[in-house]
């Protein structure tokens, strides 16, 4: 599911390579906010290149996401950005779900966790924390099943995405031009 349609809304998956500096997130969020587009999820972390961060956003932008992407591309701190909604990508999200349980039903939860190939990463007398990775649908399904036991809290990382195959998602060095505006004539 790269271009999602949930609850009748259209989600775009957009990936960006940005300078790792204060304020970058603010500049980017500002453009979406100006248009009233909601950011469904946002994941940020280091990229393979020192000094550059990699972002993945999922944005609810029924129309004109393209226009905002072009605006974002103009930001000095944005090195590359692309809407990969229609491309062949892998996309994953991770969630931590804290579920209420006791000796009586713990084994049921373990069964669910096994089916989803998730992990239990913390156990207490009254709870477990489940770590699950997958697409949003898988996490939603897992959450639905665990709800009956009593979910105390859940945290999701938001989607991270990259292109399949050997190609880099953000080609670097492309379109490099040095800029000089030669003065024109000052007369007609």
């Amino acid at each position, binding site marked *: 599911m790269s271009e999602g349609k949930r609850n009748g809304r259209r989600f775009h998956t957009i990936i960006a390579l940005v300078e790792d500096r204060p304020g970058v997130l603010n500049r980017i969020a500002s453009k979406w906010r100006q248009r009233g587009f909601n950011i469904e999820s946002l994941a940020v972390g280091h990229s393979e290149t020192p000094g550059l961060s990699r972002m993945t956003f999922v944005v609810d932008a029924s129309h004109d996401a*393209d226009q905002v992407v072009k605006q974002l591309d103009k930001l000095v701190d944005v090195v590359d950005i692309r809407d990969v909604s229609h491309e062949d990508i892998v996309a994953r999200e991770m969630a931590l779900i804290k579920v209420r349980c006791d000796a009586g039903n713990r084994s049921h939860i373990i069964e669910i966790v096994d089916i989803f190939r998730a992990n239990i990463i913390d156990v207490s007398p009254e709870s477990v924390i489940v770590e699950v990775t997958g697409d949003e649908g898988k996490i939603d399904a897992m959450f639905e099943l665990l709800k009956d036991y009593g979910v105390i809290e859940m945290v999701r990382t938001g989607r991270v995405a990259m292109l399949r195959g050997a190609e880099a998602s953000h080609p670097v060095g492309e379109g490099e*031009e040095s800029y000089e505006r030669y003065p024109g004539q*000052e*007369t007609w």
Partner: protein
Amino acid sequence: MEMTGAEMILECLAREGVEAIFGLPGGANLPLYDTLPKFYPKIRHYLVRHEQGAAHAADAYARVTGRPGVCFATSGPGATNLVTGIANAWMDSVPLVAITGSVIRPLIGRDGFQEADITGITIPITKHNYLVLDVNEIPRVMREAFYIASTGRPGPVLVDIPRDVQQERGQFYWPEKVELRGYRPRIYPDPAEVEKAARLIYESERPLILAGHGVIISQAYYELKELAEKGNIPVITTLLGISGFPPDHPLYMGMPGMHGMHWNNLAISEADLIIGIGMRFDDRVTGRLKDFAPLAKIVHIEVDPAEVGKNVRPAAALVGDARVCLQQLNRLVQHRERPDWFARLDELKREHPSLVYPEDAAQILPQYVIQKIYEVSGGDAYFVTGVGQHQMWAAQFFWSRKPNSFVTSGGLGTMGFEVPAAIGVQIAKPGELVWAICGDGGFQMTMEELGVVAEYDLPIKFAIINNGHHGMVRQWQSLFYRGNLVASPLKNPDFVKIAEAYGILALRATRREEVVPALERALAHQGPVLIDVHVKQDEDCFPMVPPGASLQETIGLPKEYIELVRRRQMAEVGR
């Protein structure tokens, strides 16, 4: 070399070739002011009376020189006073470098006295901005600021520097090159698109050029004229494209859009090709977008990729510097006779006159004053306007022999631009004639800057088109709000006395016969002059596209005005 932060800032400005700074001091930029005398007279500082004036003056300075304008303000209220001026430069793609002092580093984010998060505030209205927390970063940041402001699609950049960073000492290291991996403005268009555009132009029977600010920014005057003449294509200029093409050229058609020439709005609706150059198909140009140029294919020449495809879908898109694009296009463009099209345009011009008014009106008509200002200046002057009716008439009747001589607030439509902008132009162009065509409303928004005019004896000629109203608002209320004139009538001060209080020569014209003598007297006077012209209060500005309407629905001039033309034409035929 070791220097203080303040010295570094000024050293960078000097290296960038900055000669004029507009600003106002305060606690957070005092180290900068303390250092200014060391750089005098290489760098001159002009003390404005309100920071908005500094931003507008620097903006206008940049428009007429093509180099970034620079303004200074202190933290908090000083910085926030710049905001309107920065937004104005942002909307009109003007290179502006705003340098603000900010509270000392230990106080940032703690609501210290006069703190405002100016970098946060200006994110949406700057191309980029910086908060400098390390003195050694100053040279790189300043270099980048000027580079970003002036390249690609120009725009404002703000640099916020805490007072303690200005005072700290550091090593001055001037980077030879700017390296910004995320910023690569386009210059050269895709050759395939250039070919496509040339083919579309050749195939077109009814082409029109719509030239915008980009022509002036890239100094593509010659190339635009070459395209028009070589391709035999009429030229329309947008509000900010005015003075990008000679107004007396046989191919010139004037302005389109909301208060543009009626013939242009109809011609656009009949054209089969629109060549937009350095313009963005703004709603004031296009009218209701879905009915804009219904028969036309579009060639869009534009430096900003985000503008391409934003409002219209181009059949060919040349993304790059307007001048470079035109040079490449002109090589391929072929001449074509288009007798039917030119005959049709002549017919539209005849049937829909847009530049007439009764010359014998009992009261002074604003159009008359504006046309006379152009006439007495002999085409050799800069014309700065405010925002409103007088601005639209100034655009309609524009006549000058100078490229880039029309300075106006387009995108933001900022009243009060006229006074400080005229100051910026006069300082950039000493020895040249500068007219400020002012609204009585707008003038009062920034008239404190007369202090600057007087202090530096700037020989600007101010003409207040005094209609006793926020004229454009009155016009909308009269046309669209049942004549319910709320908050548009103005109780004005005596503008003559105001000018005189500053020691500025002031004249008044209340009858038509007084207009030209007053203008001539103003020209003869060496120093600044203010003329308060009392014009007819309820004159409406036509043609007009009602808000939300299409260009085809343009309201033409009043019938009586058109009758005048008919009678004149008949008289000529009879002769």
